[in-house]
């Protein structure tokens, strides 16, 4: 299955401070801390496993502004 048919989240590496609150929040373990570091010196989180249900818990838990954007897959037939 391609990316088009799945929910996903986008984590802005510039805005993530790597606190990992989203990782704990995600009920499906979709998020992990990556190995790269961003300009602020934080190891930022990244979307890893594509089991996302677009529940938004990571979005609501995240303490940064707009670090996470949640995308919902298109409805069937849409």
């Amino acid at each position, binding site marked *: 299955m391609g990316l*088009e048919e799945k*929910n*996903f989240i986008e984590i*802005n590496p*510039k*805005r993530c*401070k*790597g*606190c*990992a*609150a989203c*990782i*704990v*929040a995600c*009920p499906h373990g979709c998020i992990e801390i990556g190995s790269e570091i961003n300009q*602020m010196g*934080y190891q930022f989180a990244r979307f890893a496993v594509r089991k996302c249900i*677009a529940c*938004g*818990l*990571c*979005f*609501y*838990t*995240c*303490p*940064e*502004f*707009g*670090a*996470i*954007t*949640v*995308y*919902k*897959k*298109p409805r069937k037939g*849409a």
Partner: protein
Amino acid sequence: MHTIKHQKARSLYPTFERKAPGADVSHYCPGCGHGTVHNLIAEAIDDLGIQDRTIFCSPVGCSVFAYYYFDVGNIQCAHGRAPAVASAIRRTNEEAIVISYQGDGDLAGIGMSQIVHAANRGENITVFFINNAIYGMTGGQMAPTTILGQKTVTTPEGRNAANEGFPIGMAEIISSLQAPVFIERVSLANAAKVMKARMAIRKALRNQVDKKGFSFVEILSPCPVNWKMTAVEARRWLENNLEPVFPVGNLRDLPKGPFDRVDKKKVARISNKKILEILGVGEEEVHAGTVQLQEEQNIKIAGFGGQGVLSTGILLANCAIAEGLKTTWLPSYGAEMRGGTANASINISHTTIGSPIVSFPNVLMVMNLPSLDAFEDTVRPGGAIYVNSSLAPRKVRREDVAAYHIPVSDMANNLGAIQSASVILLTVYALVSGAITIETLQKVIPLSIKRKNLVDLNMRAIEAGIAWYGENC
């Protein structure tokens, strides 16, 4: 096509113009609860469609910089006084949605009195109380809500009830009052609880939109840095240690406020004349009302403290009031009384004045060289600059403004009181601009000056200004 289900709220600025680097991120530490609450409030503001009438009262504490993030009206309140400020906004602006956002040091410490009385009056405002059981901004000192045994910078052995008292449950204190309509304590310990916090925040704001009354949401929030934990550990600690002391849950949710509000339209208004009578100033009023302004006057008067810069501004504003014009006066001065720099912004207009701030004046009166250097470039083209040439030896460099160089300090010295220099400058301004008349100035001066023995001197200063104008203009 994928649809965006959750994204940054519209009531947060796209980028943050803050002094520290990082236009994309908050100034909060990684894992701080403030950002989460900001996001939840911003989303609620978006969804309720109240962005254009929301006024956010930010506290002293880490969230002092909320104005960097929220694209709504903002007042940064003195420490702990946000509920008082919010009450004032509520009483003067019925349409505003007033949010008081406070931390534990702010609300439960220095501001305890303000929050209790605002709640007791049942002001139709929404208070968000961020309780992280520690003073975050100042580096982790004990807060009123610090739990027993919790180690902080000021309780290195842990908080001890015999020494520092017990942690204060604010939600319980508020719920002992009759007036509040909604009181809930929520937690940010995990995602499910964040979603409950989201509902409480929305409800508290919705109540205000529905004019129900005072809503209070206490949010238990992690402070990983000062608790000396990771963000994840902090959330676990919050759940295991803070929540037993401060049990989460709803304490009150009334369908409507416990009293009917006074309908302002039905209350007889006290006339301005009556107020002046009560204050005992009614008879001293000066009414001229003959001036027609060529254009709105945005005036900056600048000089050293002690040169009469601020009081001249008040004098000018009082004259404008006497002329029946609208006016504002806004002082700005350093910590020093005398010798420091000072300036006053005065607006004079026929119509209501939106802001008292004058960034680009069309009239500049400067009493010394540093002020001329500082403000010369801000004057709008076609404006006028009045310079005290006794203390500002150089000429005005701008060619697109009218410049008047008047040796007012020397002239005032000759009259016997150097303090009256600014009045001479004001006199010349009055004659050149016609914004106020000399007759009004002469009538207002005795009312504006506290030391009555200086009235004559200032009258002579006016004469000196008139004489200079006659000779030079």
